[in-house]
């Protein structure tokens, strides 16, 4: 047994800093209690923002508008390329423009329930309250949302809800919202209020006298390592899905910023809560570098099936109707092909594990539109899904009008992240985490169209007033450039890069990343059990040792060196992977995206164990490969009563 698995339990987290009182009034109360910084004094405060996606872009622009001096970083060549840009479907908001019974209360309820009762009620309620302002803000910026002929905004429905509250801009909602934030940020850059550092990657957090006071970052073009000091640091660096290697995340998305902060004292919460999207294009071979999502709206008209017989490799058209297994319709007759994401994903894995998967490697199931085309006609199907069909054909060279699509689940979002209180502050004073980088609002499962909502809520509306309060209340003497903490943080960063370069082994960064990803996918993916997680906890340290013996990175650290960037991120991925497996092992219940095979109902569905696990698990770092300390934040459900989900 790995010693890493024998974690210790520390003090529970007693106070999340949410005000008491009725839940509808808590955010008002918090904003009123917050101390303000005089507008004339704001320019004297420097705030670092890491990341320029929906959360970071919105926060940087807003803080600069308020008068703060913002220093902002992104590893991409432009802030416009952050991975929020790839979000397709839409953004939720409790506008009730449809008069269909929606309300702040209902969005709050749907989100808590959709998260399988593992999120904090106060935060989720605030998210629902703020959602309505986001749409107003984006429209004012010129975001071209879909509209009706009368000129008003169109909405559509998404999974897990019964109202139409999702605003969208065709299949490119994330792109349009991000460009809105990017343009607001660009205005502040041009005005000199935001100092932007593109192609610059945060590699460590500077902590002085117990407070976050800056970051150490590497210029990816010149290799220069430099410390930037500030009065507060905001991490908006996204999620950690790329630890699996194959995911729908962008190739360069990574966990280094949040993991380095974790090593400096920020607790990491619920790392095992990862979301797997059921409808992605399967891998076509070992060369596969990333996975592409196909909108879940396809499940409205497509029927999912596999052959009844194992190893049936006839082409789909040659398999007669009575030899096909429409397994979702069979197992879940009332929801059929529209069961929630986690259920659909797990069912696909089960039939593939039985040897009934289709396509190369047997890692796929059919999503068949033949019935829909017969019923509605080809033109109607094309009008609804034409752009998705084109995208599928471009990637696979198969025509989905004639041959069923092949789909398979893939990692695409992480609900876990840095633990934050009601103010979005981590356990390191002065360090804030927003957007996917924190753990706050989605519990164990995120609903569709809620990621964009949370990123913009945090950046535009939640962080600015709480950060204000921190800056107003705390004395923050300037950190001199020759402070010993600066020199030691820079040296640590430099040493690590030099160590990687010095190995000069025989294996590439990608080969290690693929191996780690496959291991995690097998043992900490769609279904997890104790034996598998213990296997993973034994194998990860061995793989890490092998990395330090065999990694090969050509070139130097004083130039643009993409292999060095990859290898350096991988070092953090190894440690994070270990914590994910430990978190999954310790949480011996199933909830949302975390399915423990030992904890299921007689029908094979996820069985929560509220009496034992109704808490957020916040882990404290103690050292590489040594057992972390668990701090529990008990979750109290005063407004939404926990129930067991059923879709049969």
């Amino acid at each position, binding site marked *: 047994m790995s010693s890493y698995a024998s974690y210790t339990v520390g003090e529970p987290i007693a106070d999340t800093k949410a005000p008491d009182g009725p839940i509808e009034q808590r955010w008002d109360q918090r904003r009123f209690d917050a101390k303000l910084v005089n507008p004339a004094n704001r320019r004297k405060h420097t705030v670092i923002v890491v990341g320029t996606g929906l959360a970071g872009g919105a926060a940087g622009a807003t803080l600069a508008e308020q008068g703060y001096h913002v220093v902002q970083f992104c590893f991409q*060549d432009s802030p416009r390329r952050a991975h929020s840009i790839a979000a397709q479907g839409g953004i939720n908001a409790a506008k009730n423009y449809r008069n269909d019974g929606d309300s702040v209360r209902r969005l709050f309820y749907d989100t808590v329930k959709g998260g399988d009762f593992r999120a904090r009620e106060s935060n989720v309620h605030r998210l629902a309250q703020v959602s309505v302002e986001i749409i107003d803000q984006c429209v004012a910026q*010129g975001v071209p949302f879909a509209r*009706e002929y009368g000129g008003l*905004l169109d909405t559509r429905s998404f999974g897990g809800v019964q109202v139409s509250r999702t605003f969208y801009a065709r299949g490119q909602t994330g792109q349009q919202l991000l460009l809105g934030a990017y343009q607001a940020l660009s205005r502040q850059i041009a005005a000199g209020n935001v100092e932007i550092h*593109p192609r610059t990657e945060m590699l460590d957090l500077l902590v002085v006298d117990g407070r976050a006071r800056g970051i150490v970052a590497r210029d990816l073009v010149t290799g220069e390592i430099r410390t930037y000091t500030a009065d507060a640091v905001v991490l908006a660096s996204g999620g950690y899905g790329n630890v699996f290697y194959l995911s729908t995340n962008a190739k360069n998305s990574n966990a280094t910023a949040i993991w380095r902060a974790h090593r400096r004292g920020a607790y990491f919460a619920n790392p095992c809560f990862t979301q797997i999207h059921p409808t992605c294009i399967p891998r076509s*071979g070992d060369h596969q570098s990333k996975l592409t999502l196909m909108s879940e709206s396809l499940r409205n008209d497509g029927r999912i099936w596999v052959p009844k017989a194992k190893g049936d490799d006839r082409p789909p058209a040659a398999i007669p109707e009575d030899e096909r297994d429409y397994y979702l319709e069979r197992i879940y007759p009332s929801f059929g092909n529209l069961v929630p994401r986690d259920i659909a994903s797990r069912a696909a894995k089960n039939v593939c594990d039985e040897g009934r998967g289709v396509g190369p490697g047997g890692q796929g199931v059919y999503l068949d539109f033949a019935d829909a085309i017969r019923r509605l006609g080809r033109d109607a199907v094309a009008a609804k899904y034409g752009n998705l069909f084109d995208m599928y054909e471009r990637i696979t060279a198969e025509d989905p009008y004639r041959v069923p699509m092949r789909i398979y689940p893939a990692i695409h979002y992480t609900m876990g992240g840095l633990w934050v209180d009601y103010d979005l502050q981590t356990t390191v004073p002065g360090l804030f985490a927003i957007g996917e980088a924190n753990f706050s609002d989605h519990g164990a499962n995120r609903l569709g169209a809620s990621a964009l909502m949370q990123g913009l809520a945090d950046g535009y509306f939640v962080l600015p007033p709480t950060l204000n309060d921190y800056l107003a209340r705390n004395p923050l003497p300037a950190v001199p450039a020759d402070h010993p903490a600066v020199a030691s943080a820079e040296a640590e960063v430099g040493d690590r890069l030099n160590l990687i370069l010095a190995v000069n082994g025989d294996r590439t960064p990608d080969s290690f990343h693929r191996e780690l990803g496959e291991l995690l996918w097998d043992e900490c993916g769609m279904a997890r059990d104790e034996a598998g997680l213990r296997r993973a906890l034994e194998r990860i340290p061995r793989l890490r040792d092998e990395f330090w013996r065999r990694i090969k990175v050509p070139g130097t650290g004083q130039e643009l060196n993409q292999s060095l960037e990859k290898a350096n991120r991988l070092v953090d991925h190894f440690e994070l992977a270990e914590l994910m497996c430990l978190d999954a092992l310790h949480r011996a219940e199933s909830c949302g995206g975390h399915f423990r095979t030992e904890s299921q109902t007689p029908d094979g569905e996820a069985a929560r164990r509220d009496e034992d696990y109704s808490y957020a698990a916040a882990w404290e770092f103690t050292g590489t490969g040594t057992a972390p300390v668990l701090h529990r934040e008990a979750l109290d459900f005063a407004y939404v009563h926990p129930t067991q989900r059923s879709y049969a």
Partner: protein
Amino acid sequence: MNLTLRIWRQAGPDAPGSMTTYQVSGISPDMSFLEMLDTLNEELITRGDQPVAFDHDCREGICGACGMVINGRAHGPERTTTCQLHMRHFKDGDTIDVEPWRAAAFPVVKDLVVDRSAFDRIIGSGGYITAPTGSAPDAHATPVPKDTADTAFEHAECIGCGACVAACPNGSAMLFTSAKVVHLNVLPQGAPERSSRVRNMVAAMDAEGFGGCTNTGECATACPKGIPLPSIAAMNREYLRASLG
């Protein structure tokens, strides 16, 4: 498939560059162009050579990071981004030339990586609507006719990849700039800054050293998102209107 690649290698902005020939074998027709380059890079690293540097991120055609000139065409033979170009569009035994975007305003950083920060500065000069957070009226306060919203969207689809500039014989950024001008200027929310926006963005574009437009239309042909060529004429009209007003 087995292929011969001739790739532009350049160690840094001031270093001389040259085309270098590589052989790759066992390429699957299902690979994307970037996955084919990944395969080459894995071999180069294992041999201890420097891999070919190129920008890429989302690999699903929306972030705009990737872009290279393939056999003389921006993003290659299909009208899509380089990450969405698949090797089935090439034949076994082909020789493929791979070069960075060529434009004075996009200096080479390394190999196939170029500096496109000029685009960010054009946006910063006026490619926004001034609407500080918290100041917005209700989203339904101003209806926007559907066809206006659709026009705005079609121009807002630009991903800022730079193919338009790379394809243009003059290295002009007119299509990029006009896409943003039209997106914001057709909307009622963009009207108050309509004139200053087009004036400032055109001035910023010129200051960055992009060439002028001679209506060759190569930009719109190369654009992976289909930004329409008449967008440039619309910007010229906006510019004239702003100058006369």
